[in-house]
């Protein structure tokens, strides 16, 4: 039987993979061919999707991007034997976009059947778990510390410090919580991983549970990710039936259970304390810290809260050793980062690389410039709370400290490319508008400041008393930065100020007007 691989990642489906799958099956049936159509996650080269891969003695041969009209000619050409065709790409591993990457977290994504334990094990799955079961909990934490792993959610806090704190708390119940509330625009790595390699996240959380002495974990998935939620929930059932999760993990006598929970459309729930409130069944209102979640987290118990990507790379670190991981990267940013290239870009997708690659390499060498073919004017790095950098700053390396020194942030690794039609005054206004819509409302700087920010920018854009309003805007940004309770209000000024600093002309378009009579 011919094995054919097609992604059912939500983005692949958005590009028509569902229809291509039906057409492949129908056409095969018509020709009396029996196909074993394996649904995988995505390789993350979205401009080549829908993409189909055929198992041949020479490896998997890919064809894409496919339109429905291509299907009959693929069969005519003999694509099931890997024959030439206008859409033939060849082996994906040799494609320059993938060959230049260092896929550690995403080693299996797009290759395996996401819900096949057999596939997972055949690709080194659960080796790290066996290793963790042999090690003392503190030794696992040490390994994570030596890897230099920092939280991939956005804050970049050293993962081992959280784990170590929870490990040393004396409590009857501890929790492990995965933050999969991936709300930053331009990011989709958590989603791809959960849809394409859910057992990897399960294994990472299991190891965390064993390391800190937690017996229960939750994966909080945003409600926009229903496909990921379904795959993840099913994967947990399968892992539980197979004895990886439950009262005695692989017969070790140590217990760990996992549940998925769905968010409800609140960006703020990506903030860890707000997420915990939401998991407890409350409004997602931010908590004041201290106490940090590692001391008083979910239901008041010591809790490890990490991003999905942080957990998902743990199996690789344990299986290959902390040093092998730390050998990638630059400065204090060790290991690899799954970068997500998005927006107005020709070759958008997932690029996992050691830290230190420049934005220019990402946007041009990988991305191929803008989708519209116009010049790149700005890139926003790190989501809606990240800075807009001009083309002239694209030589910045992708690294926590460098981006912070340039008054931006790496965040969750998303890069959104804009062409020369973007108006940074409007983007700055949007930053406040978004904050006003998504603020939890607990602290005044964020709740009120965001609304005032929209008003001030509206006056600046209209040309009303510009000098006075620029001073007011600066004051407001400073106040929000200094006095907000969490990063939502505290970082909303980042995109605003970067727009002002790098694109001042955009704020100076309207002819000056005097203030309207009060």
């Amino acid at each position, binding site marked *: 039987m011919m094995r054919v691989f097609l992604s059912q990642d*939500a*983005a692949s*489906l*958005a*590009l028509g993979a569902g229809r291509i799958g039906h057409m492949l099956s129908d056409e095969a049936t018509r020709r009396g061919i029996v196909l074993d159509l394996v649904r995988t996650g995505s390789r993350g080269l*979205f*401009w080549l999707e829908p993409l189909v891969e055929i198992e041949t003695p020479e490896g998997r041969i890919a064809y894409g991007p496919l339109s429905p009209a291509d299907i009959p000619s693929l069969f005519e050409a003999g694509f099931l034997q890997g024959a030439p065709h206008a859409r033939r790409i060849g082996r994906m591993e040799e494609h320059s976009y993938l060959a230049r990457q260092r896929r550690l977290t995403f080693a299996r994504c797009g290759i395996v059947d996401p819900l096949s334990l057999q596939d997972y094990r055949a690709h080194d799955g659960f080796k790290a778990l066996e290793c963790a079961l042999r090690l003392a909990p503190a030794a696992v934490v040490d390994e994570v510390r030596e890897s230099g792993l920092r939280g991939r959610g956005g804050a970049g806090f050293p993962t081992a410090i959280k784990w170590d704190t929870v490990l040393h708390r004396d409590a009857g119940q501890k929790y492990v919580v995965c933050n999969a509330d*991936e*709300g*930053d*625009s*331009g*990011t*989709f790595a*958590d*989603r791809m991983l959960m849809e394409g390699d859910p057992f990897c996240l399960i294994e990472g959380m299991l190891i965390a549970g064993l390391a800190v002495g937690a017996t229960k974990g939750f994966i909080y998935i945003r*409600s*926009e*990710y*229903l*496909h990921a939620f379904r795959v993840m929930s099913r994967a947990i059932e399968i892992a539980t039936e197979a004895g990886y999760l439950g009262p005695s993990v692989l017969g070790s006598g140590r217990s760990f259970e996992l*549940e998925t*929970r*769905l*968010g*409800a*459309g*609140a*960006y703020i729930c990506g903030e860890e304390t707000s997420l915990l409130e*939401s*998991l*407890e*069944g*409350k*409004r*997602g*209102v931010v908590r004041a810290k201290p106490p940090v979640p590692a001391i008083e987290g979910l*239901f008041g118990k010591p809790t490890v809260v990490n991003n999905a990507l942080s957990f998902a790379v743990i199996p690789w670190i344990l299986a290959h050793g902390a040093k092998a991981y730390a050998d990638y990267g630059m400065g204090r940013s060790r290991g690899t980062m799954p970068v*997500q*290239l*998005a*927006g*107005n870009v020709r070759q*958008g997708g997932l690029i996992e690389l050691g830290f230190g690659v420049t934005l220019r390499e990402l946007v041009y060498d990988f991305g191929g410039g803008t*989708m*519209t073919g116009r010049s790149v004017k700005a890139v*926003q790095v790190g989501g*809606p709370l990240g800075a807009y950098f001009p083309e002239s700053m694209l030589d910045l390396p992708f690294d926590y400290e460098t981006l912070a020194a340039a008054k931006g942030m790496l965040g969750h690794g*998303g890069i*959104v*490319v*804009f062409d020369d*039609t*973007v108006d940074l005054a409007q*983007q700055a206004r*949007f930053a406040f508008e*978004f904050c006003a*819509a*998504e603020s*939890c409302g607990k602290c005044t700087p964020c709740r009120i400041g965001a609304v005032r920010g929209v008003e001030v920018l509206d006056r600046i854009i209209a040309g009303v008393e510009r000098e006075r309003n620029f001073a007011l805007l600066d004051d407001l940004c400073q106040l929000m930065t200094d006095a907000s309770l969490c990063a939502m209000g505290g970082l909303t000024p980042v995109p605003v100020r970067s727009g002002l600093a790098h694109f001042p002309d955009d704020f100076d378009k309207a002819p000056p007007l005097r203030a309207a009579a009060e």
Partner: protein
Amino acid sequence: MLKPVQWDDSRASEIIAMHASLDGAALPVLHALQDEFGFIPDQAIPLVASALNLSKAEIHGIVTFYHDFRRTPPGRHVLKLCRAEACQSMNSSGLAIDFLSKLGISWGETTRDGTLTVEGVYCLGLCACSPSALFDGEPIGRLDMARLDAVVQQARDS
């Protein structure tokens, strides 16, 4: 397509009971109710409050805090259009303005024939194929007006 199920106290109580024993049950309960009835009517609030041993004010607070929970019934189909930056970079804002004015509605509203509700969302994680949307939960990428017109037609036909 959403099921046009009429609100029913006893069916609602059954659904609530199915999820009430979960840790932090409020969100799973409210999601399950909305999946069944399409929205969370005011009658639901005392039922949920009593089952979870919380105050009506707390449940009201939760329902109104989260953007997902609707307090009025949606149209027969729901289109969630992304309004976040990656989609903006591909002119989603202009597209949305034209589309909504064509339908004669604003964000969150339903067409007069009850066919389609259009809701704005901030990011669907489909940012490498912007602009994007979810139509009755199914993802659509590289949206343009022709695709949106086809969605409206599909909504009207079914």
